[in-house]
């Protein structure tokens, strides 16, 4: 009995000796700043070239429209605007030129149509949502020499105005 008591007392003493160290165990924390920077990105792609053609016998000496179009894909991760220069000049490589109206569809009435044809896009993939539309309306005469006239139209994606 005496031995058992002695053992228990020793164990209690050991436990008591351990307790202060548990209660005062040191701790520490370190914090690192974590940041994510997603850069602004946009891409634009016109699906195809645009061709227009007159129909001779029915068109000459009359005012008629001819037009062509292509789908435009836009992908952007910021509020962006797709715009196109309004006036397109076609030339036969010489001195003859024809002015052509250019527009984006659907029409965005928020913009002044006098300068740009524009469409706003929220961030996202806007594949196939827009059509680049080229239209020429004029009174066709024999002064419009037969041949092929060519030019280019450029679209660009820029940051939307606030």
């Amino acid at each position: 009995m005496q031995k058992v008591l002695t053992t228990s007392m020793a164990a209690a003493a050991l436990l008591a000796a351990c307790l202060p160290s548990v209660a005062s165990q040191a701790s520490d924390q370190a914090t690192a700043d974590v940041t994510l920077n997603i850069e602004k990105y946009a891409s634009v792609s016109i699906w195809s070239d645009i061709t227009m053609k007159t129909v001779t016998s029915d068109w000459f000496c009359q005012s008629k429209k001819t037009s062509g179009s292509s789908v435009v894909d836009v992908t952007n991760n910021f509020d962006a605007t797709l715009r196109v220069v309004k006036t397109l000049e076609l030339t036969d490589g010489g001195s003859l030129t024809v002015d052509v109206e250019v527009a984006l569809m659907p029409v965005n009435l928020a913009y002044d149509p006098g300068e740009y044809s524009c469409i706003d896009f929220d961030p996202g993939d806007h594949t196939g949502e827009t059509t680049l539309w080229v239209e020429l309306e004029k009174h066709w005469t024999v002064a419009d020499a037969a041949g092929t006239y060519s030019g280019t139209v450029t679209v660009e994606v820029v940051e939307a105005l606030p």
Partner: protein
Amino acid sequence: MSRLYVIGVAVALLALAALPAMAGGPAPQTDVADVTLTIDQYCEIAYGTVIAIVVTDGGAAGSYTSTAAPYSASANFAATISGVVVAPTGAPGTWTNSLTLKNVGPASSPGTGNATVTVSGLSISTPAASYLTGGTLTLTIQ
């Protein structure tokens, strides 16, 4: 001191160079489409005058030419006008035509010209008669 000054100026210049890009956001992304317009060839020619040749007073041997028959022609390309005359049915002689304004194009059209018909090889021994059908002058522009 001088070295520090130079470094400071260089840093400032670098910062200035970076400013426009930062202020303007990302560079515009662009794409270009070729646009072509094809204008077909077009031309027209018209005249509606009856071309008559009358030999009076028995005539003399030689050629007889009609009065000038005006026509108008236009084309949006460099076109050529040609004519083919067919003599009236049973008519004697050799029949030819002549044209003015044989070339027409965007720079000169619409234009007008004259066509005449000539019959040659007639003589006093050619019997008097009227040949009123089957004669044509066809102008072609191409």
